[in-house]
């Protein structure tokens, strides 16, 4: 079994490591305080080719493998989880619906600027009353005057409200609310479209640099060519194609775990109590050994899911398992790493405290872990 990266994947990792350490990590502390989406860094990442990482070259991307994306995420996420979160939302759910279901005119118009890093992509699925129950969305799109009239509200939408955002691709039901088996479709709504407004940037426990908002659609009319894909395609089929987002959150979790492990090891070797570095005490050693072991377990679940996607094989179960395992490991490891740091680790001046705050959302976003359990259980025949 060959688990080594290819030459282009290694080149990509080197780019990401260099950029992440020289440009992103050094700003992480200030970015936390600023609590603003660092679009200047995202634009620079666009110039490197990173914003089109999963998009074919034909549409302005670099056509990287999923495995390469995971490896790149390990580097970016270690430097700053907010930047990594904005990046992954852009490259997965922000770009893939256009890439996979858009026609060529739509790809040229909206996907290419995203892939070339000139704009930031967002996807609107979640609503105040529809989170895990995606089928419960109430945003509607009705045929009107040769186009579609959209009404509704979206919650926790990332990347739609920055100075680099082009708008949002949103999911809406195209049949009336009373229809029992409604059809769904996605639409592009560009910013500044009349009736499209948004709330203020929400403040999370972590991911402080991620721009997350509520979006409001009041009689928003878009022409028919803003409809992306076929409303006849089932909702689950549509959402399944976005399952790479689970691999992406798993990779983000790996990066966080690696970061807190590195910080905890550094600290444990420096911190002297009872006359010796605390890394010499078994209580600390065992914690570090456990984190390192669990990280490796999560890592190979994630890379295997990525490999299966690249090989064109089913990866639904593996992606759910990777996301479930890696996010659990991340929140647990962050807590243990703070514990090793003691009081210092509780203070937001230390990177480990910030990673701790960033960790919880990994168990919630891109399908809660409860949903991952359901997905896995179904594949077991339940």
């Amino acid at each position, binding site marked *: 079994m060959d688990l080594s990266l290819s030459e282009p994947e290694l080149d990509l990792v080197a*780019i990401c490591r*260099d950029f992440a350490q020289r440009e992103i990590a050094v700003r992480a502390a200030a970015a936390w305080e600023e609590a603003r989406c660092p679009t200047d860094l995202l634009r*620079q990442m666009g*110039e*490197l080719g990173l914003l089109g990482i999963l998009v074919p070259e034909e549409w302005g991307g670099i056509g990287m493998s999923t495995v390469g994306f995971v490896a790149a995420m390990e580097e970016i996420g270690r430097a700053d989880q907010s930047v990594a979160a904005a990046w992954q939302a852009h490259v997965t759910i922000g770009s893939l619906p256009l890439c996979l279901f858009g026609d060529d005119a739509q790809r040229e118009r909206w996907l290419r600027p995203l892939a070339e890093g000139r704009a930031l992509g967002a996807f609107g699925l979640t609503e105040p009353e529809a989170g895990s129950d995606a089928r419960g969305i109430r945003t509607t799109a009705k045929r009107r005057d040769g186009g579609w009239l959209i009404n509704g509200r979206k919650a926790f939408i990332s990347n739609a409200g920055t100075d680099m955002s082009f708008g949002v691709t949103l999911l809406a039901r195209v049949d009336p609310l009373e229809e029992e088996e409604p059809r769904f479709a996605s639409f592009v709504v560009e910013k500044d479209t009349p009736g499209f407004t948004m709330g203020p940037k929400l403040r999370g426990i972590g991911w402080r640099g991620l721009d997350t908002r509520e979006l409001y659609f009041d009689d928003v009319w878009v022409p028919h060519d803003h409809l992306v894909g076929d409303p006849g395609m089932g909702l689950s089929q549509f959402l399944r194609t976005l399952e790479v987002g689970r691999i992406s959150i798993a990779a983000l979790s790996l990066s966080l775990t690696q970061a807190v492990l590195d910080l905890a090891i550094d600290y444990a070797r420096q911190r002297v109590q009872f006359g010796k570095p605390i890394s010499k005490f078994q209580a600390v050693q065992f914690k570090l050994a456990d984190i390192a072991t669990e990280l490796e377990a999560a890592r190979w679940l994630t890379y295997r899911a990525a490999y299966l996607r690249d090989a064109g094989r089913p990866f639904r179960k593996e992606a759910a398992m990777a996301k479930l395992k890696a996010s659990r490991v991340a929140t647990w490891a962050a807590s243990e790493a703070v514990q090793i740091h003691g009081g210092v680790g509780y203070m937001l001046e230390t990177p480990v405290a910030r990673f701790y705050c960033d960790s919880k959302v990994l168990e919630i976003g891109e399908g809660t872990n409860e949903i991952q359990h359901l997905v896995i259980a179904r594949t077991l025949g339940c």
Partner: protein
Amino acid sequence: MAMNVVVCVKQIPDPAAPSSLDPGTKTLNRSGKLILDDSDSYGVEMALQLAGNVEGSEVTLVSMAPGGEVSGLRTALAMGAARAILVSDDSLAGSDALSTAKVLAAAIRRAEPDLVIAATESTDGYTGTLPVQVAELLGLPSVTFAKSVATDGRNLKVERQTEAGYDEVECPLPAVVTVTAGVVEPRYPSFKGIMAAKSKPVETLTVSDLGLDASQVGWAGARQEITDVSEAEARSAGEVVVDEGDGAERIVAFLEQVKVV
């Protein structure tokens, strides 16, 4: 007017990795992988920006390195340079700055440059003499320590860094100019750039290809010999001052002593 811009780039041992001296020759051990000297990335960026302003302009890299080393050149090619000329020859080991200048001048001449850009000095050798030697050998004017470079394709306009400020200097092309770190902000090579760099042409030449004689270069041609090296003074531990209510005055006294205030 399209320009052919040549950039002298040095490939050096990674400054972040532990380095060693050859005990026999007292010169830097260059046997491992070499990387692009960071100080040359400014010259490469400057060249790319000047060439990018004029349709049809191109940037050619010129380097001398042992063992056919191209790792550093690939980095500069990934930034956007079109091609590279590498001079690599066993007889070049031991070359002093002047011998190196002769080799580079001969290689640069083949590229028929309108403008030659170099860093003010390398990060491993620090002689800072090579660019002006190259200019002299090529019979070209040289302008050093540029903090800003502009050209209309016929003349060069340079802001030359001085201790007090800067001089405005103009000279006709072709010319040699050395640029300081900070003249421009070097770009990061993009993924597409790195992929493209793998297939860009690198012409590898020997000393005889350049019409030079092995006796003029390397140990044989060196007029400079390193007779002795000594350890740099270890950084001292510093002085710990315990604040006994007079901390502020002690700090001020120290700053006055080192003439900072």
